[in-house]
């Protein structure tokens, strides 16, 4: 009550000043202010968003083990040299076996199975069929197929996985280690089938041994990204990293974008940040946010890779199969530094690798319940540094913040222009102005939806087609559909006469709103996709304006704007962006194979039910088309 009274008094004091008009409430005033100065703010916010993204390596925190029960490295190792010799013997046996029985992969499984049963494990052989990768639109986001018990499929080509279950010898049999090997390459997806039988799986480690390390030390690479940007519990990575670095002396690395390491602009930014950090440190010794430029470069290369792999939504290793069953899993790739013939070093390497695994398993076994502490939403900048969701979402928030402002400001402008130009009495319904524009936006989104579904029908076409042919088919049908849309729906086409055309400002306003909604929805499903999507889509949407007036005016500023929006639109075309990102990752492309590569890439997206595909088809593509429409708007 007292507060209310004071408010009233304040109001009265203001009115006593002599201004008869009441000022609207501060939040409304702030809104109006933002909308009125939207061009400035959109530039500021976008720049701040990009800056926040660049700052992320600086803001990364050191990882820590948040689940106390894990206690990594506290158990005394039970592995002895004898065990390692037994392991070496197995390797030798497999090598000899391979030499003597070439091309009989299934037999090797039997050999491994024998070893497993000698160890006291229950051994199971699982037959599986390499599944064809069929795109099915309805299977997105649906769970794994229901299990089939003891299915007897009689097919000539099948693979065999061997799995061994070692139960805790003194326990009640509820705790066990499950070993599985699949030597056939197509088995990746099927590995997880075994584990449907296993009850709860606390954690899964997929082990790969690589030929040789590029570095001087033995290297352990951790791959953690699973489908749709899902990450395993950070504690799992922490435990592996802690044991590998502090106990077994491995050099631990996570994937990074190598081409960024040599980029000069990033180096300059790093140096600037370093200088600022040093300056801040001299001003106040408590400010310690500066990191060396080299670290910054490494961190941002790792971050870029982490962001890219999460955004893609395709697992970076076979561990991805576990994530569908809510199992925390990572792939470990160990690469020894020695030449393969050096025996003592091989023995030592074997021992350390095995101790790392033993330590991790015992750590996880210490857990009293499933992993639930620690982070699931994070980006890695190094194996021991992470950025949590609370920090990295700032960049995204800043990037998308100008969208509603600009949309509102454009809408107001567009409405004014419409009421001035048309004498149509129907135009007096001010609030219905956006309907025409919305129709156009909706039509193009519908088109995007159909284009997204098209591959399903293309896959149904009988006969073998190369990926390239399929993508050509897809491209031609999509573009013909686009022309049909332009031809049939009046007001949709950028080439139609001016009378039918809607005001481009309103169209842009609705486009921006749609992009905003799409990006926000996507940020819930896969944050990294939304982040990269926003980096592409936000500038494109904001810059889009008709080039005709710009060309006509011949002013440098408007010409530059038109040029920028053309460049952005070119980059924004999905196929184009795919090619650029491939180039960035150092995987060169031959121009002609682009179509085929793109198709296979899409197929991999379907295989893992990546929401990125849906985002590209249903948010990015329509918004890109709408921006194209605005660019060629006949105003």
């Amino acid at each position, binding site marked *: 009550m007292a507060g209310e009274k004071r408010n009233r008094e304040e*109001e*009265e004091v203001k*009115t006593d000043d*002599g201004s*008869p008009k*009441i000022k609207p409430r501060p939040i409304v005033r702030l809104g109006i202010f933002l909308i009125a100065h939207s061009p400035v703010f959109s530039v500021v916010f976008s720049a701040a968003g990009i800056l926040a993204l660049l700052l992320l390596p600086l803001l990364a925190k050191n990882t820590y083990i948040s689940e106390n*029960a894990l206690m990594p490295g506290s158990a005394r190792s039970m592995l002895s040299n004898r065990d390692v010799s037994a392991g070496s013997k197995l390797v030798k046996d497999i090598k000899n076996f391979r030499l003597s029985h070439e091309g009989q992969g299934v037999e090797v499984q039997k050999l491994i199975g024998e070893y497993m049963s000698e160890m006291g494990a229950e051994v199971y052989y699982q037959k599986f069929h390499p599944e064809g990768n069929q795109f099915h639109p309805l299977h997105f986001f649906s*769970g*794994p197929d*229901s*299990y089939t*018990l*003891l299915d*007897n499929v009689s097919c000539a080509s099948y693979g065999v996985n061997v799995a061994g279950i070692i*139960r805790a*010898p*003194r*326990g*009640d*049999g*509820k705790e066990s280690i499950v070993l599985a090997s699949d030597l056939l390459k197509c088995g990746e997806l099927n590995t997880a089938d075994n*584990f*449907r*039988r*296993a*009850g*709860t799986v*606390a954690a899964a480690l997929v082990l790969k041994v690589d030929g040789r390390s590029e570095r001087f030390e033995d290297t352990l690479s951790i791959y953690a990204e699973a489908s749709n940007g899902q990450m395993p519990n950070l504690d799992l990575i922490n435990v592996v990293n802690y044991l590998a670095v502090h106990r077994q002396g491995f050099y631990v690395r996570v994937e990074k974008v190598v081409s960024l390491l040599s980029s000069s602009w990033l180096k300059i930014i790093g140096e600037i940040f370093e200088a600022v950090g040093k300056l801040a440190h001299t001003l106040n010794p408590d400010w310690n946010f500066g990191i060396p430029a080299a670290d910054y470069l490494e961190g941002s290369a790792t971050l870029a890779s982490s962001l890219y792999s999460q955004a893609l939504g395709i697992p970076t290793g076979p561990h991805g199969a576990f994530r569908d*069953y*809510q199992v925390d899993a990572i792939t470990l790739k160990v690469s020894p530094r020695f030449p393969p013939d050096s025996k003592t070093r091989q023995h030592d390497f074997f021992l350390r690798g095995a101790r790392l695994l033993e330590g991790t398993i015992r750590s996880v076994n210490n*857990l*009293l*319940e*499933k992993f639930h502490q620690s982070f699931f939403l994070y980006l890695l900048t190094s194996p021991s540094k992470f950025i949590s969701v609370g920090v990295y979402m700032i960049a995204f928030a800043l990037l998308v913040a100008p969208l509603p402002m600009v949309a509102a400001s454009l809408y107001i402008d567009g409405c004014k222009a419409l009421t001035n130009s048309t004498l149509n009495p129907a135009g007096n319904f001010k609030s219905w102005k956006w309907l025409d524009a919305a129709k156009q936006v909706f039509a193009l989104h519908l088109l995007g939806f159909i284009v997204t579904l098209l591959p399903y029908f293309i896959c149904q076409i009988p006969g073998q087609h190369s990926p390239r042919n399929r993508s050509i088919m897809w491209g031609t049908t999509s573009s013909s559909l686009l022309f049909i849309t332009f031809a049939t729906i009046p007001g949709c086409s950028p080439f139609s006469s001016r009378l039918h055309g809607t005001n481009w400002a309103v169209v842009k306003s609705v486009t921006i709103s749609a992009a905003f909604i799409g990006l926000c929805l996507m940020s819930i499903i896969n944050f990294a996709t939304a982040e990269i999507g926003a980096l592409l889509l936000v500038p494109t949407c904001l810059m889009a304006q008709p080039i005709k007036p710009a060309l006509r005016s011949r002013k440098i500023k408007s010409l530059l704007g038109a040029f920028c929006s053309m460049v952005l639109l070119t980059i924004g075309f999905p196929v184009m962006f795919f090619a650029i990102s491939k180039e960035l990752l150092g995987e060169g492309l031959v121009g002609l194979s682009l179509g085929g590569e793109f198709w296979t890439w899409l197929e991999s997206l379907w295989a893992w039910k990546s929401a990125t595909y849906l985002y590209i088809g249903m948010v990015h593509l329509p918004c890109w088309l709408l921006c194209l429409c605005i660019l060629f708007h006949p105003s």
Partner: protein
Amino acid sequence: MASLVRSWIPLLVLQSFLFAIAFGSTQVEEFSEALLLKPLPDRKVLAHFHFENRAPPSNSHGRHHHLFPKAISQLVQKFRVKEMELSFTQGRWNHEHWGGFDPLSSMNAKPVGVELWAVFDVPQSQVDTSWKNLTHALSGLFCASINFLESSTSYAAPTWGFGTNSDKLRYGSLPREAVCTENLTPWLKLLPCRDKDGISALMNRPSVYRGFYHSQRLHLSTVESGQEGLGSGIVLEQSLTVVLQPDTTSIETNIQPSWSLSSLFGRKVVGRCVLANSSHVYLQLEGRLGQESKNVDTEIEAHKLWKNADFELSFKPDRVLRESSSFLFIFDIDNASDSEPFDLGLTWKVPSKWSCQQAPLHASRFLMGSGNERGAIAILLKATESQESSPVRELTDGRCTIKANVFQIFPWYIKVYYHTLQIFVDQQLKTDSEVLKKINVSPSTDKVSSGMLEIMLELPCEVKSAAISIEYDKGFLHIDEYPPDANQGFDIPSALISFPNHHASLDFQEELSKSPLISSFKEKSLVRSYTEVLLVPLTTPDFSMPYNVITITCTIFALYFGSLLNVLRRRIGEEERFLKSQG
């Protein structure tokens, strides 16, 4: 006169003593102790302690007992227990290596945790009450949470699947119960010598609990006297089965490890329990060893039995008994003393391998499906190697068949759909009429009673594998029903697989002694095996969620009602007019 009386008293005492011996040999309380040692094929050693305490029928309640534990007799009298078995187990019985077709395994291979069953001698309506009271009494007696079996959601009334046919039988098990010394100490208190003397002095706690399997069992049954006016006698059988791994110092890996009592337990037998009628140590050697040298007539031959090229015992057995595939060496420990302790040892000289007799089918159980919503339980029966050589075969309509009973309790939160029961024989789906002989189902009621499934399968003898699968939905628990501590999931009690036509017994040919252990081996016991415990993860609520919900709803309420009241109460037009008038 006084002197006359004085001279008569000893005579009277003597007379009454003689009278007791002459007329009531069954009237005397008897206690016997025994230890059976058995090397196992997988380099481990099984030690089975067996104590039997018999109380004769008596007609007085609360009478004084000499040897028999009073707590047990009061339990029997108060709750009118006809037969009861309580077992505390940790570890899994390895049916493949430790045997599945002998009386020892069929009686002592128990499910993990606590298992209790009891038959009552009360009217049908009072059975449940008696059971509940019994669980509480036992809970106090054995320092365990047996009282959790009181809840109707945790026990069941098996009809025929359990093997004991009685409508007054109740069965319950607690798979999660951790078993340790606090359960062993009260169990030892029931023995007249506790663990101070005799064979039980070997029970060194660290050695017992270091083992791969330990199961302490208490079985009591009442014996009707048959005489009118006389109560019933009680037979209390206590046994502790431990599987230990002898420490091996030799690098030779294929020779079975040699051991002695002191290396296994860290203690030696220094004498018998003086209150015991008999105390023996048995050593059973199985397999290949038993088949050679059939005639042991001469002294040299007998000597060869325990000291030969294969192995050597550190003591001369007092007697040697023969069974079809094994030898039993019997040792009396009467002569053991502090200066000359009984420390039986077995030294292997050459590598030897043998195998145990297997149950006709090996049972294992696993879960299928993933996610928090539903799943399926499968029980897999696999033919063992010994099945072909199994002598017990039954012909039904000219077909050779194996009968197998499956008894399974489902907690209510595992909502089983009994119609989804599928039976596969050799990976072929079979219709119910083909293999299902008998089925009894009692569905569970949410939070009231557990479900029970009893199946009798009739499988062809040449069966390789049989699988039973049944689907279930996972229920939601109330917040109070979750365990207070961190947990990995909920346990489904072991299923019991029994083979009603297969009975295990050891038939020692020239046995004359009345040793309770041997006579219990001679009795035919039903071949049964328990499957492993299953761990079912249920949806675990985020227990901090109420806090989040409260804060977020409060915020939303405050925002919603604040703005709503603002909209309803404020009259902007009037305010403006008022301000204008003021201006």
